[in-house]
């Protein structure tokens, strides 16, 4: 009885975000080599954090706090590709070759 719409919507968004984070960290275990695991880490950084922050914004309502919450995915969008590209570049320079067929 005590559930209202806002709580229900944020519950659904939290569930979607948890699903993406869980599948990202599962991919971190399942995928075969470094270059493939970067995709799984990118999944956690973009979609998982985005949906959970969206749920928190819906739950708290619009105020200065929700603007502050919007800064979290903004920072992640700026920093996550730099980290992924740096790890891929250094792993490639150190001589690890990706598995699978390589047509250059």
């Amino acid at each position, binding site marked *: 009885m005590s559930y209202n719409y806002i709580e229900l919507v944020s519950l659904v968004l939290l569930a979607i975000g948890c699903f993406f*984070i869980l599948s990202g960290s599962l991919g*971190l275990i399942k995928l075969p080599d470094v270059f493939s695991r970067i995709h799984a880490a990118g999944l956690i950084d973009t979609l998982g954090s985005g949906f959970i922050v969206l749920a928190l914004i819906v739950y*708290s309502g619009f105020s200065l706090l929700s603007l502050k919450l919007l800064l979290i995915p903004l920072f992640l969008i700026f920093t996550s590709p730099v980290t992924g590209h740096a790890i891929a570049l250094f792993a490639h320079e150190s001589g690890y070759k990706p598995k699978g067929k390589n047509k250059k």
Partner: protein
Amino acid sequence: MIFFATLIVLGVSVALCLVRAIKGPTPFDRILSISSIGTIIAIGISVHGFAFDRPDFVDISLMYILLNFLGTIAILRYYKIKRKKSNVV
């Protein structure tokens, strides 16, 4: 209540990442999974702030994301420099 369930799921995924950080054959696997753990924990800090009705924790979460990025880049540079030196000697 829903935030406590979220925190439990985040804890399980941190444990999954930790398996890769312990097992990982190359150093880059470890760096990647440590960086993912940092992101998950930064999200978990703000969820924890909502669960205990103290939304000021969002500031700490923002700082955690920036420090996590700096730490990852610093470890990568350190590893590269160390590798270069050991090749020369």
